[in-house]
C-alpha cells in the first residue's frame, strides 16, 4: 500500500518535472500573459488563437500564456496577481468590466509590467497602450447602412448587449446617432439579449407575436443575438429579403449567415488586429522603439506610427453578400 502511494507520488513528481522543464526552457524568451475575458465565447477564442499565431510566437521567440477570465472581473483580478507573481514581461488584457478592471491594471503597471488593453475598454488611465475597435463608430455604421437599405423608412427592433457594458453603451450611442439621420426609421422595440443567441431568439419570437407583420428591420449589437433572431424569423416564415438583419462582430457563424443571405450586413471585428496587434504593442513596450512589428495587420489594415501611440483604433470592415467570401 505504502509502495503504491509512494510510486503514485513519484510518477506525479516525474510528470511535474517534465512539465517544469518546459517552463524552465521558456525562461530566455519574452513571456506574455494574455488575459481573455472568456474563452467559451467565439470571438475571444478567435482572439486568443490569433495571438498564438503571431509570427513571434510561432517562431518561438515569445512565449504566450492564455488566461481564461470566465466572464468574471474577480477572476481577471486574480489572474493579474498571478501574472505579477510570475514576473511576466508584459500583459495583454481584454477587460470584462470597464470599472472593475482598473485597480488590477494599475497594480500591474505599478509592478513595472506593461499592460496592453485589447478588445474592450478599461476605466484605468495607467495602461501602456490600447488596441480596440471604435464601438460607437460600429453602431453608427449599421444605423447608416440600414438607412440606405430602407430609404422609405420602416419599423426597427433593436437587440442590445448587457446594459452597462462598455460595448453596449457605445454601440447603442452609435446606433442612436446613425438612426437620427433617418427620421423615417422608427424604433418600435429594444431590449437586452445579453449577447446570447438563445435570448435573441426568444426576444424575436415575442416581438414577432407582439408586432405581427410590422417589423421591417432588425438591428443587433452582436451577431449571436442576430443569429437567434434569424432562427425565430425562420420558424415564423418571415422573408429575409424583405426584413434586413444587421449586426456587428463578423463571427464565423455570422459570416456564414451573410453568405446564405439570411443576414444582410455584419461588421467584421478583425480578431487578428486586436490580438496580434496587441502582441506587437507588448513587444514594443518590452524592447523599445527599435522594435519592428511583425503582424501583417500593420500592413493591411492599420498604421504602426512607431508603436508609441497610446490608443490604436481598429477599423471595422463592412461585410455583405458582395465581399463576405474574401473573409471566410
Amino acid at each position, binding site marked *: 500500500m505504502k509502495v503504491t502511494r509512494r510510486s503514485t*507520488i513519484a510518477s*506525479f*513528481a516525474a*510528470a*511535474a*518535472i517534465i*512539465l*517544469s522543464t518546459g*517552463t*524552465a526552457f521558456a525562461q530566455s524568451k519574452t513571456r506574455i500573459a494574455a488575459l481573455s475575458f472568456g*474563452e467559451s465565447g467565439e470571438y475571444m477564442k478567435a482572439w486568443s488563437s490569433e495571438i498564438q499565431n503571431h509570427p513571434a510566437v510561432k517562431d518561438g521567440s515569445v512565449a504566450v*500564456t*492564455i*488566461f*481564461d477570465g*470566465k*466572464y*468574471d*472581473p*474577480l477572476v481577471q*483580478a*486574480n*489572474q493579474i*496577481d*498571478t501574472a*505579477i*507573481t*510570475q*514576473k511576466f514581461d508584459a500583459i495583454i488584457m481584454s477587460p470584462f*468590466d*470597464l*470599472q*472593475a478592471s*482598473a*485597480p488590477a491594471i494599475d497594480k500591474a503597471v505599478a509592478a513595472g509590467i506593461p499592460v496592453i488593453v485589447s478588445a474592450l475598454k478599461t*476605466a484605468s488611465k495607467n495602461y501602456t497602450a490600447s488596441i480596440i475597435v471604435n464601438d460607437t463608430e460600429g453602431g453608427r455604421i449599421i444605423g447608416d447602412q440600414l438607412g440606405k437599405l430602407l430609404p422609405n423608412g420602416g419599423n426597427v427592433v433593436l437587440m442590445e448587449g*448587457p*446594459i*452597462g457594458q462598455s460595448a453596449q453603451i457605445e454601440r447603442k450611442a452609435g446606433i442612436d446617432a446613425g438612426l437620427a439621420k433617418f427620421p423615417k426609421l422608427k424604433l418600435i422595440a429594444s431590449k*437586452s439579449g445579453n449577447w446570447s443567441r438563445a435570448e435573441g431568439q426568444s426576444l424575436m419570437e415575442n416581438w414577432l407575436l407582439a408586432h405581427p407583420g410590422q417589423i421591417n428591420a432588425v438591428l443587433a449589437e452582436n451577431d449571436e443575438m442576430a443569429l437567434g433572431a434569424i432562427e425565430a424569423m425562420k420558424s415564423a416564415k418571415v422573408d429575409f429579403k424583405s426584413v434586413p438583419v444587421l449586426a456587428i462582430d463578423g463571427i464565423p457563424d455570422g459570416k456564414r449567415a451573410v453568405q446564405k443571405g439570411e443576414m444582410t450586413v455584419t461588421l467584421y471585428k478583425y480578431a487578428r488586429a486586436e490580438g496580434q496587434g496587441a502582441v506587437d504593442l507588448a513587444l514594443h513596450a518590452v524592447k523599445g522603439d527599435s522594435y519592428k512589428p511583425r503582424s501583417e495587420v500593420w500592413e493591411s489594415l492599420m498604421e504602426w506610427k512607431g508603436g508609441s501611440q497610446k490608443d490604436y483604433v481598429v477599423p471595422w470592415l463592412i461585410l455583405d453578400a458582395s465581399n463576405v467570401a474574401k473573409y471566410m
Partner: protein
Amino acid sequence: MVANAISNVATGARSKSIAAVGPYLKSFSIVIVFVVISAFFAVANEYFMTWLNWVNLLRQSSINGVLAIGVTFVILTKGIDLSVGSVMALAGMIAASLVTSTNQHFVLWAIVAGLGTGAALGLLNGVIVTAFNVPPFVATLGMLSMARGLTLIFSDGRPVPNLSESFRWIGGGSVAGVPVPVLILFLVFAIGWVVLSYTTFGRYVYAVGGNDKAAKTSGISTRTVIASTYVISGLLAGLAGLVLTSRTTAALPQAGIGYELDAIAAVVIGGTSLAGGRGSLVGTLFGALIIGTINNGMDLMGVSSYYQQLLKGAIIVVAVMLDQFRK
C-alpha cells in the same frame, strides 16, 4: 433530557462509522489531498511555493471559503443553499450604494447594510423552508432568481463604481502583510468552528441533520435550528459580497453568478455529507483551498481552462466516491 437524547443521536451516528476518530481521520485525509496537490504544483512550477503566490492563493480562496463555511451549516442540516451567489451580489450592491462619491456614508453603515441584507434574505429562505415546508432546493433556487432580480432592479443593471477608500480596504487592504480577505476567512472559520464544535447550537445542527425526528422528539426546536443555518449562510454571503465588491472596486449586477456551485463543491470535497449530520468546517476550509489551489496552480502552469473545468469536476466526483467507499 435534551442532552441525553443528543448523546443518543450522536452514538447512533458514531456506530455507523468505525470509531470516534472517524471525523478526525476524514479531515486528516483532506489535508493529505491538499498537500499532495500542492506538492505537485510546487514541483511543476517554480513560482508556486513563493510567499507572494500563497498570499494570492489564500486571497483568491477567501470569498469562496467564506461562502462555503455558511453553506456547510445548511448542508449539515440536510439542506442546500443555492442563493448565495445572488445574495452576495445584492448585499454588495446595497453596501456599495452607501459609499459612492455622490452618496458617501460612514463605511460601517455600508457593512451593516450588506450583512443585514444577507441575513434578511437568509431568514426569508429559512422561513420559507421551515414554516411553509418548501424543499430547500426549491426555496433557495427561487431566492437565487429573486435576489438577482432585486440586484438588477436596485442598480438598473448598471455597475456602481467610485467606492470610498475606506470601503476598498475590506478587499484590497492588508494587515502586517496578510490581506484583509484572508483575515476575514480565518476569523469566520475560527468562529464557525467554535460554534459547531463547542456550543449547544452546534450540536443541535448535527443532531437535526443526523436524525431530525429524534432531535424533535428530544425537544429541540428543529425549525429554529434549520432557519438559523440559513441566516448564517445568508449573513456570510453578505460578508462575501462586501469583500467581492470591495476587491473589484465596483458593485456589478452580474457579480457572483455561479459562485454557489464552487461553494457547494468546496463543502462536498471537504467531506460534508449532503445527507446531513456529517462533516466539518476543517474539511470545508481545505475544500475551498483545494479548489483555489487547482485554479491557481493550473493558471501558473498555463493549462487551458477547458482542462481546468474537467479536472475540477473530476475531483468533486472522486471526493464523494472516496467518501462512499469509506462508509
